[in-house]
């Protein structure tokens, strides 16, 4: 692979990554030596810094990541306060409630209960620290199962999950909900 293609491939991967990417992993993906990847990444980081763009490529937490340039913090902070991440939508609250009451639960199960794709909402909830992966479905597919976090309990002023308000008797119990899910074919991922 030419250096220029390797650089472009690194940029592409780092652009879609949500977390810092380990250079070891990058080396495997690009079939290059780790030393070569480190060299290319350091090169890229220097180029980006010299270019004076709105973001930097930095080495952090054991990997490389694109992040906003610190001197643009005032604008980014406005975005944080007024943008997409400033509100809990009704959809997000419903999703959080399903995870809270049904945990451990997979994304597909949440999607089936809500009747709509829940991936983006689940990612946001996870990023904000309200839910987290708690295990894997033992069945085929080994879907990642989610549950709520300590932070979630703290924010709601609950001591433990047992303190969640009970669902009244007349609402569909877990068996009914499960039957509903089976009817929707949720069990398969």
């Amino acid at each position, binding site marked *: 692979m030419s250096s220029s293609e390797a650089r472009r491939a690194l940029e592409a991967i780092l652009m879609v990554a949500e977390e810092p990417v380990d250079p070891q992993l990058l080396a495997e993906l690009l079939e290059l030596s780790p030393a070569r990847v480190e060299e290319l990444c350091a090169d890229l980081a220097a180029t980006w810094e010299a270019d004076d763009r709105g973001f930097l490529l930095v080495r952090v937490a054991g990997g490389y990541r694109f992040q906003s340039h610190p001197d643009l913090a005032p604008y980014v902070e406005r975005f*944080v306060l007024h943008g997409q*991440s400033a509100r809990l939508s009704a959809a997000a*609250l419903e999703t959080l*409630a399903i995870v809270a009451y049904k945990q451990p639960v997979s994304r597909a199960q949440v999607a089936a209960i809500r009747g709509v794709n829940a991936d983006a909402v689940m990612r946001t909830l996870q990023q904000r620290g309200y839910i987290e992966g708690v295990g894997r479905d033992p069945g085929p597919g080994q879907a990642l199962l989610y549950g709520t976090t300590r932070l979630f309990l703290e924010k709601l002023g609950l001591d433990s999950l047992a303190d*969640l*308000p009970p*669902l009244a008797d007349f609402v569909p119990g877990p068996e009914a909900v499960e039957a509903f899910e089976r009817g929707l074919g949720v069990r398969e991922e």
Partner: protein
Amino acid sequence: MVCARRATPRRYCPRVPYEVQTTVYEGPFDLLLHLITREEVDLWEISLSGIVDAYLAEVERMGVVDLDAATEFLVIAATLVELKCRRLLPGPADVDVDEELALFEERDLLLARLLECKTFRDAGEALARLAGAAGLSHPRTAGLEPHLLELAPDLLAGVSPADLRAAYLRATQPKRPPRVDIDHVAPIRVSVRDVVDELAVSLPAQGRVTFRRLTSGLATRLDVIVRFLALLELYKQGLVELDQPSTFGELTVAWTGPATAELATVDVYEG
């Protein structure tokens, strides 16, 4: 957008668990489209018994009858039988003009539906090509960096455990009441009730009028039937007089009720 030749296979194996002549059709139009466009078969030549045999053999092999699949097949078979019956009808010389026109109308309707179906199938393939091209790019969805997360407003501020419970109940409410599905039946576009109402307004001003005149300009035989049922309804309520001097003669209609009639409840005719 420049698109390469479609990458997705045209055929796939849907949930319908049986195969008729090695291909599974998604509904009667799918089958018809296939027969007409790809096989270039004259419908006259299709052997219904061949399809039925293949289907029955498959059902036997499965040991279980899938109700959905069976129903779907019935719809396909019914459409084919209907078409074949049309082809078996006597030639134009033996058919009266109304019948012939009705036949042409139905053929046109079927043709229009086939064209519509083909249009959306091709549009669907174009959407797949767009999705295929767009799928080569992956979006950045990284979201806030850790130090920014601390800045972010607390999303759960003001959310109580009771709110959470309410949200759960909202989300788990059954979305659709169970019902018998009749979606595959062609929808009736006009209801008898609607036409009764319409006639009760228009007839008083028209004096004596022929049924032919009342139904001129109607698109389908179904609309004509609905209009006829509406007239019978008005007759039952004593609001119109029907007169037909001879069998198969011209039917005339005259309004005999008050200028603005109070209509009794109309029986609903289910499609």
